[in-house]
């Protein structure tokens, strides 16, 4: 048995608005969270998820993108409408992991089959990957599914600027997250429910 992984949602989908294409990495990653935790039974559009939070309600209405708390708020509203509390996100930024800046918490969440949304600076991703097409403040989703490659562990990730999921080394994921925040806490959230196991 291994964690389910569903169809990948890209922020560049044909039906995606120009706002989602330019600024929608966080709400698109929330879509990937919902797909994976619901085992594909739920697949809202990125623009629908974006509509759940008014700009005036976001943590910084002057900027078009979303923060982790904005994604959490959207997830709470979506989960309530869907009648499924497991689809909520829980903001884990600097909560209970003060000394580790989040990395141990992220590993614990993944080990316990949570889907993780993690902010970072995408210039750490190799330019020969689909993720290399963008450098800057970004959000990706991390599925609990792992594999060993070149004697190093990788996780399956959903980078919303990519057309499909891909594998990434844990150390590169850490470097991506760390670069954004320096010595501060990693910016992340975990799904309330588990990613289901499948054969």
């Amino acid at each position, binding site marked *: 048995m291994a964690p389910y992984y569903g169809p990948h949602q890209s922020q560049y989908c044909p039906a995606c608005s120009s706002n989602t294409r330019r600024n929608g990495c966080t709400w698109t990653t929330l879509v990937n969270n919902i797909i994976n935790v619901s085992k594909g039974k739920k697949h809202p559009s990125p623009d629908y998820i974006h509509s759940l939070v008014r700009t005036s309600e976001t943590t910084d209405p002057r900027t078009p993108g979303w923060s982790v708390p904005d994604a959490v708020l959207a997830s709470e509203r979506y989960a309530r409408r869907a009648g499924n509390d497991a689809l909520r996100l829980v903001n884990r930024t600097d909560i209970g992991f*003060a000394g580790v800046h989040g990395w141990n918490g992220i590993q614990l969440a993944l080990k316990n089959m949570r889907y993780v949304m993690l902010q970072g600076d995408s210039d750490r991703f*190799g330019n020969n990957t689909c993720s290399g097409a963008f450098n800057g403040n970004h959000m990706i989703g991390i599925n609990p599914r792992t594999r060993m*490659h070149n004697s190093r562990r990788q996780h399956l990730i959903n980078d919303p600027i990519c057309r499909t999921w891909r594998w990434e080394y844990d150390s590169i994921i*850490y470097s991506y997250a760390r670069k954004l925040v320096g010595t501060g806490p990693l910016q992340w959230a975990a799904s309330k429910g588990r990613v289901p196991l499948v054969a």
Partner: protein
Amino acid sequence: MAEERTPEYTEEDLAAADAELAEAEAESETPDPDSEDLKDE
């Protein structure tokens, strides 16, 4: 359209990232017991 699903990095890039992660893990603490709710819904 086919798309690579496995990134390729130089060994130097991976070694640097491994070292950064190893340093972080060496400084890490056990997650707070309050975070045990990550284990249970």
